[in-house]
């Protein structure tokens, strides 16, 4: 039995299939970072840290005439979003109901996807994770409200990357507000704005809940590294006669190898 303790849950095999499928369906559109950065793993729940290949001096070694250094690692974080489901809804699904209420699972999936994106793009200081956008040394480019100028802003960001010797293709992560604005501006001089941006980038445009503003980043590889211990999974907490408490969980870390490989676009 794994640490997820799924066997202890009062959930049938088809019930688990339903929950896993629903979670996958909700998570995949929202996991923006995974569409843009390098992904390594999954290395399993037991995987705890990544070697950074560096060492730091340790003060006061326990002896005369010696020095000490300690290897540096980046520990993985465990990210969890708990939720409760009404057992009768799962029982109805077993009877063949095709509209069980799984809203709590959907909300948990969105929460954990938002958190993963935010950690990758904006960092998570307490976990030692630096984000892509906060690490960028380039001047941020203000997007403004006029979407027709967005291709120009994106081109300027790409120019900054090229001047720093960062090749493409380039991807564009758009926070929800910016994404909506782009969608609402369907045309740019008679040409769909999204298509125009795609041509400029050579890479994908991604809806990125959890991202404030937007960012252009290189997808040539080796610059942004997401390392996965256990990939997203549903585990069991406890239950009573009416409800069952579950959680979505993953373990990961993230590091920026090339801070110059991204440019921040700020939202007005």
């Amino acid at each position, binding site marked *: 039995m794994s640490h997820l303790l799924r066997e202890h849950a009062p959930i049938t095999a*088809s019930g688990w299939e339903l929950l896993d499928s629903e979670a*996958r369906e909700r998570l995949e559109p929202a996991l923006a970072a995974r569409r843009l950065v390098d*992904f390594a793993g999954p290395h399993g729940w037991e995987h705890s840290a990544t070697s950074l290949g560096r060492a730091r001096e340790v003060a006061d070694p326990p002896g005369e005439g010696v020095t000490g250094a300690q290897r540096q690692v980046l520990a993985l974080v465990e990210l969890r979003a708990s939720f409760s489901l009404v057992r009768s809804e799962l029982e109805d699904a077993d009877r063949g109901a095709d509209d069980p209420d799984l809203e709590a699972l959907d909300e948990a999936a969105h929460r954990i996807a938002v958190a993963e994106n935010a950690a990758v793009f904006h960092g998570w200081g307490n976990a030692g994770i630096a984000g892509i956008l906060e690490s960028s040394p380039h001047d941020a480019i203000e997007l403004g409200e006029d979407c027709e100028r967005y291709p120009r802003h994106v081109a300027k960001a790409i120019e900054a990357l090229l001047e720093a010797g960062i090749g493409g293709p380039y991807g564009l992560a758009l926070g929800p507000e910016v994404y909506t604005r782009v969608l609402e501006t369907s045309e740019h001089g008679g040409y769909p704005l999204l298509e125009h941006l795609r041509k400029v980038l050579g890479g994908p445009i991604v809806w990125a809940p959890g991202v404030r503003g937007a960012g252009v980043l290189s997808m040539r590889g080796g610059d942004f590294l997401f390392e996965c211990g256990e990939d997203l999974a549903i585990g069991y907490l406890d239950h009573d006669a009416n409800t069952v408490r579950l959680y979505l969980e993953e373990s990961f870390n993230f590091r920026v190898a090339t801070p110059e490989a991204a440019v921040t676009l700020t939202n007005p």
Partner: protein
Amino acid sequence: MSAVGFDQYHEPADELPQATRTFARLCASLTEEAEAIGWYEQRMAVESDGEARAIMHDAQGEEFKHFCMDLEFLLRRTPLWREIAQGILFQEGDIVEHGEEAEEEATEDAASRGEPLAGGESLGIGSLRGSGA
């Protein structure tokens, strides 16, 4: 539709998801590495020049490495395969017996959890690069 065809695809390539195409490419690569290992084994068996044999031996070592990397990739992407492999690889004793037991245990566990065969306990999402926005 592209007119270019590749042997590793059994189904029309443009109907296959990106992850399945990657999986198929690595399966094809695994096959090629195994073939190369077998070829070097045969060449060394008939080669009388020691220096030539040493080079082939070195080259075969490279193929061992490639084969193992391909295999590890495929096992990481296929938890059920990985679970069965864990019951067979590097075990003392009867290989066939271990195989039967490992398959039975792994498939029963997966079925009791209601999981898709290749899904493992995780949702199996992994990287979404190239999967479309």
